């Protein structure tokens, strides 16, 4: 197929999306994620007319395509362009007394909301969060007071419904000043539950959440789902490390010998992969079971445990150069630590103050450890060349 760059300032209409459709999921012409074009997106089942406006009605059932795209968004950069057009949508057959549910324009968030509304008649107000989920966008301020006020007036919500309340997801609260929204638009913000699956119960109970509906969870499945993206981002940079290894271990006074790259460097490649596994997969998944509260320490403990285990099982300490083993044992648990620290961004409970403190304490150790490991590595190299 031909890849043509679309000339548009709207990044959401991405040529990448069209390229990516060559994965075989569907015809590229039907695969535009943004709806600037004339095509009706597949999740729109019809239209409701309100005055001169026609408002799209969304399907409350997710199709196989929605589910496949969710998987793609979980494992690849597909998620960076996975958005819907901001504005007002309908679920069921809402009228002027129906509830209004606010969400972000990340397609996965939008899907979570609409699939929770089966059998209900409500309006969905989608804010322009640049394709980012509600909580992250609220943290950045794009799911925020000014965008909400702007969107309320753009869709003229006051002419669509006769009541004065909107249901905003609780996790949108870091970006929304509900007092200001009320003063400037007249709409009262009701904070709905954390998870859209509780929306039905929340509305049925008279806009009330129980304690559980207000709490954020972060169980093992939640953590597991996040690891493919973490691993992907690291492994995308792994070739730099592999290149360094091939050159360093292949380097001899006579030039680079690739046989040496492999026979002597394999231990480093293996160690690199093991530390990625320990820091970016094992630590996130088994987070509460690893000692210490600090992520840097958790990652270091996990990494050290894996390396100590491998060293013990293989007896590598006896068969390999001591300085090479020392270099590995210093460097790679620290790499696991660094990768575990990166996972703070994906968690639901780490604070800015805490992360700042961790970085302040951990980075000097990372730098010193890397330097020490490199010194060991150089000593190994010198002894390998037979100079000492």
């Amino acid at each position, binding site marked *: 197929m031909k890849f043509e760059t679309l000339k548009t300032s709207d990044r959401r209409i991405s040529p990448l999306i069209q390229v990516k459709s060559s994965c075989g999921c569907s015809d590229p012409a039907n695969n535009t994620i943004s709806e600037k074009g004339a095509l009706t997106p597949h999740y729109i089942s019809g239209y409701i007319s309100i005055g001169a406006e026609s408002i799209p009605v969304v399907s409350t059932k997710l199709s196989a395509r929605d589910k496949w795209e969710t998987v793609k968004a979980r494992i690849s950069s597909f998620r960076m362009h996975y958005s819907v057009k901001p504005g007002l949508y309908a679920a069921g057959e809402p009228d002027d007394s129906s509830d209004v549910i606010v969400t972000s324009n990340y397609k996965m968030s939008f899907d979570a909301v609409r699939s929770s509304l089966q059998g209900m008649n409500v309006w969905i107000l989608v804010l322009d969060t640049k394709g980012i989920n509600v909580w992250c966008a609220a943290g950045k301020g794009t799911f925020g007071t000014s965008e909400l006020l702007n969107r309320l007036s753009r869709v003229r919500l006051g002419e669509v419904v006769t009541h004065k309340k909107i249901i905003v997801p609780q996790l949108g609260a870091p970006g929304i000043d509900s007092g200001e929204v009320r003063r400037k638009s007249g709409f009262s913000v009701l*904070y709905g539950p954390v998870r859209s699956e509780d929306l039905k119960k929340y509305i049925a109970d008279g806009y009330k959440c129980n304690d559980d509906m207000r709490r954020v969870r972060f169980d093992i499945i939640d953590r597991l789902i996040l690891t493919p993206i973490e691993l992907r981002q690291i492994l995308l940079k792994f070739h730099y490390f592999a290149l360094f290894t091939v050159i360093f271990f292949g380097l001899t006074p006579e030039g680079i010998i690739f046989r040496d790259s492999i026979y002597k460097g394999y231990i480093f490649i293996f160690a690199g992969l093991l530390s990625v596994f320990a820091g970016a997969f094992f630590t996130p998944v088994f987070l509460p079971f690893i000692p210490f509260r600090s992520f840097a320490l958790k990652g270091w403990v996990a990494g050290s445990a894996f390396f100590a285990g491998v060293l013990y099982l293989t007896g590598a300490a006896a068969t390999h150069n001591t300085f090479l083993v020392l270099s590995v044992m210093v460097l790679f648990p620290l790499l696991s630590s660094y990768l575990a620290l990166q996972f703070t961004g994906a968690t639901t409970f780490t604070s800015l103050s805490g992360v700042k*403190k*961790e970085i302040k304490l951990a980075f000097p150790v990372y730098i010193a450890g890397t330097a020490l490991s490199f010194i060991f590595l150089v000593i190994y190299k010198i002894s390998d060349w037979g100079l000492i």
Partner: protein
Amino acid sequence: MIYLKDIATLQVFPEKCTGCGRCMEVCPHAVFKLENRKVSIVSKDRCMECGACEKNCDFGAIFVKAGVGCAAAVINGIIKGTEPNCDCSGSSGTCC
């Protein structure tokens, strides 16, 4: 799960609190409790400094230095010399 001890910047000023309960509604970690029509902090270590309570308190009764608890954002901020920001939606493709 609980993060580092005694690190959150969260503060409540009881003299300004009217006991409306809005902060308890928006807090994702049940950090607050209401007693005698005043809010107090049950567990400061559960606070992730998202800032929802401060932003939604009409009476200025809560202070927290809000931000994202994300190492990549903090490192980004240090490199660029700005406040921590997770505005990494560019080419790198890494984000919360």
